[in-house]
């Protein structure tokens, strides 16, 4: 098939740091390319979690996209100027564990 020019790139910011991605890529792809695996903490035990299923089932990859919290990064696609926020800071309280 046609495989000449590379796709156009867009700039996103991940926790305030600019990063490049190909237009049409998933947000998880942009995060994995930037080497960012931990995306949030489990609210019960406070441990770090990252993307797992890649198809919108496990909800482990939720981040804040352009201010919208609880967005699944595996089913969302990057857009130019997108603001991606992870939530890996320690939780003030955890239920147990």
């Amino acid at each position, binding site marked *: 098939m046609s495989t000449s020019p590379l796709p156009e790139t867009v700039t996103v910011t991940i926790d305030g740091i600019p990063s490049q991605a190909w237009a049409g890529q998933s947000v998880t792809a942009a995060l994995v390319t930037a080497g960012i695996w931990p995306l949030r903490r489990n609210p*019960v035990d406070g441990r770090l979690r990252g993307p797992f299923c890649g198809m919108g089932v496990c909800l482990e990859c939720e981040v804040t996209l352009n201010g919208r919290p609880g967005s699944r990064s595996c089913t969302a696609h990057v857009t130019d100027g997108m603001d991606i926020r992870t939530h890996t800071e320690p939780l003030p309280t955890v239920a147990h564990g």
Partner: protein
Amino acid sequence: MADVMAESETDVAVIGGGPAGLHAALVLARGGLSVVLLDESDTLGGQYYKRRAEQLAAAFGDFRPRGTELIRQVRAAGVVCRTGTLVWGAEDAGRTLFTSDVHTGALGRLSTRATLAATGAYERSLPFPGWTLPGVVTPGFALHLATMDRVPVGSRVVLAGTGPFLLPVACALLEVGARIEALIELNHPYRPRASVIGGALRQPARLAEAARYLLTLARHGVRVEQGSRVLAAYGDTQVTAVDIGHEDGSVRRLETDALCVGFGFRPSTELPRLLGCRTEPDPTGTEQLPVVDADGATSVDGLYVAGDCAGIAGVHAAGVRGQLAAHAILRRLAPGRAPVRVAGLRRRARALDRFAALADRLYPMPATADIPDATQVCRCESVSAGEIRQAAATGWNDLHGTKAATRAGMGPCQGRECGHIVAALAGRGEAECFAARMPIRPLPMAATVEGQDVR
């Protein structure tokens, strides 16, 4: 947002735009019925015929041209395709479906004369110490990254579990430049005994597919290590090492930056179970499958199922089963039409079922008795295997009591990741599963609050 619930009507609703749903929708629309095809994703195709984003397809080519052609035919036949729409509830034998727009939360109600559930499957995971570490993923996730996004999940990858699916995932990883540190298959499928190969010879095309993958792997120097398994993953903020256990009892530690582990697929049966259709245990004894006739009709009059949600059998079986269900619905809703001969489709479906049964024999599941007590089973609610065993051992907790006592299966994934494990750990010999309840897919709170008129 969701202040007005949009009402609509159609002859047939098809839920799920994968191979089964697409093939069914095409037959139904060409047969003269009005068809609404619903899919939670923004693009049709499901998991097998998934679509590369336009910008990436322009540079890297079409990932599945056959899927593209099928989707083009479905649209040309006049099927109303509602992508980005999830079905979160149903009643009245599936003749009323409750929907939500994935992006806006807007609620809808769709009335139908018959409904086909073609909701597919998701991957089967089995817990092991360290499986919640970032960087431990399903093989499907690695495949999606490699094929859709052209990104390797890691530079050094360990791929493990069981099932034929591990082979195409390994090849896709090689294609995007990942190095496969180890390819670990729990079973011994690739030197099968003569008795099992008898079934496979009737499906030479499927065998050729596996042989092609094995050849590609051999060319890259990747050997399938059979009879081995992942014992544990280690790392601080993400996975950095994994212990592999071998049949002779030896253990070897590998450094890795991504670990992909999967054990085949679980049927997504929530919708038919919500509607109360009769079920029976699947061949693995860990799932409840809808009981269907040769054409996919369930015990609930007017509700049909097709594809992997009716039992894992793969893309080719899904297409055939989708067509069979569509012909059955046509006979029901358009009895005046000239009858179509479906004997050939039924024969093909039976042959593909035999192949699926062979796969079940080649790739059996490991015993859940091996899961250590300290291992987390429910990822969402952080419940260990020991806590589940303890709750079940009190003697008065069945599966539902165990769920209530431990909260296992009550998190946002609704037991999709852990349900089969909790059932196996708490079970009393017969396959049980968590009840399907509305909403069967997660909904934004705004949708339920603002859409007061839902019921």
